[in-house]
């Protein structure tokens, strides 16, 4: 008699805790996977630690702790300055206000469920034949018309924009350049004081950011981190998180025939196949992914404007 009563009591007690924890278990599994990303170097093939000089020359290192301390308003001016260079490098916005608003709606829908939900985000489709998307510090996000053309539904667009929001949230770009450290050594910088030495430092820093985001690419582990953030953010919003997988599958199919890879995801991001392997493993951890939104029709109406 006593045992079944005890068991029933325990079952009642434990059920809510187990149920409430399902979301947590996904978060934790993603965190665990992030931990795995950090150990991407195979055992026995550990790279020798680069010297300080090598780090300074290469520019790209682990995310620097100082990046977390750059205030938002400073970050925003850096982002706006870099965006000017983004238009110069990749082209001007596609002249279609309805398309631009649509991309901003999808982008903001995911951004407010991201790891950094409280800053304003701005998204822009630029007229470019390259498969590319990148994020300026502070929340200005570019996506090329060619990359949008390669997509099939809204969940894919949401995933790419959430990947870029992930870079902004983690402050990956700013954390990847040594020269950003000058920011911690100066006081209030005004438009007037930016004409002097500080202005030169600032311009140099924007140059470094262009080098990292447009040419060399961020450290691979930061890209994997943004991929995972993209799936989690899309899922939390209600989009099928496998949109990220499908975008990369489409890219993989086009890689062989892509004539110009310089300055695109093919040259600045980790190999597509490697990203897919990692993402497919994570996708399996979202039990109800197939039931979430993809919205191919709503997306097609906007994509048609790019054809």
């Amino acid at each position: 008699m006593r045992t079944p009563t005890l068991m029933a009591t325990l079952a009642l007690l434990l059920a809510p805790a187990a149920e409430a924890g399902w979301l947590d278990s996904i978060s934790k599994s993603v965190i665990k996977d992030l931990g795995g990303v950090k150990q991407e170097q195979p055992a026995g093939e550990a790279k020798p630690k680069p010297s300080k000089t090598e780090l300074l020359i290469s520019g790209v290192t682990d995310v620097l702790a100082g990046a977390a301390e750059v205030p938002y308003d400073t970050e925003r001016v850096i982002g706006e300055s870099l965006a000017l260079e983004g238009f110069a490098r990749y082209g001007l916005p596609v002249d279609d206000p309805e398309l631009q608003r649509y991309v901003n709606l999808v982008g903001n829908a995911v951004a407010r469920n991201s790891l950094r939900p409280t800053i304003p985000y701005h998204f822009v489709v630029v007229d470019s034949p390259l498969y590319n998307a990148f994020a300026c510090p502070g929340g200005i996000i570019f996506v090329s018309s060619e990359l949008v053309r390669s997509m099939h539904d809204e969940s894919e667009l949401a995933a790419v924009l959430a990947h870029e929001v992930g870079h902004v949230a983690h402050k990956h770009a700013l954390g990847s350049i040594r020269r950003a450290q000058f920011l911690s050594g100066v006081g209030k910088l005004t438009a007037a004081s930016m004409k002097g030495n500080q202005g030169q430092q600032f311009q140099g820093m924007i140059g470094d950011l262009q080098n990292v985001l447009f040419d060399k690419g961020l450290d691979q582990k930061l890209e994997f981190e943004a991929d995972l953030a993209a799936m989690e953010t899309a899922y939390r919003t209600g989009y099928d998180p496998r949109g990220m997988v499908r975008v990369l599958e489409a890219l993989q199919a086009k890689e062989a025939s892509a004539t110009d890879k310089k300055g695109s995801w093919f040259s600045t991001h980790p190999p597509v196949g490697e990203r897919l392997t990692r993402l497919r493993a994570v996708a399996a951890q979202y039990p109800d992914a197939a039931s979430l939104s993809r919205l191919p029709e709503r997306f097609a109406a906007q994509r048609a404007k790019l054809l």
Partner: protein
Amino acid sequence: MRHPLRIASALLLVLLLATAAAAQTTLWVTSQGATLKAEKKALSGTVATLTAGTALTVLETDAKWYRVTTPNGQQGWIYRGKVSDAPPAQEQSGSGGLFGAVTSSSIEAGAADTSRSIRGLSPETEQYANSAGSPQQNRDALDRLMALNVTAPELERFLQDGRIGEYAE
């Protein structure tokens, strides 16, 4: 024989009760503009609009919804995508900023943005554009981009039209 078994069972019960109590779930609001609903339906009445970072105590879970209590005692339902088991990172802003203070509330309200269409680029960005020799068409493109703002009601309508997330049911 029975006695030690009863003690063991009692101990087990105490242990499990303690575990369940410790697991009394606290979740944090991690989405901007998250709302507490009267029922587990997106279109039900809004009990409160919650700030990101608010700690919530979970009372009940049902499918994709949590019934929760806020720190000031309000009860209602919140969609799973709006909460997390860890608080969101605090935004660094204002004091110590290179370009002057921006309060976190003005960041949240997007107040820095709403005036963009009338004032153009910030003086600091303008200074950079002059130093770097940015063409006028790129400055105009940036100005238009920063002036494009999506309002919260517009975003809700967009999600509702697409039957996304909490609007899927």
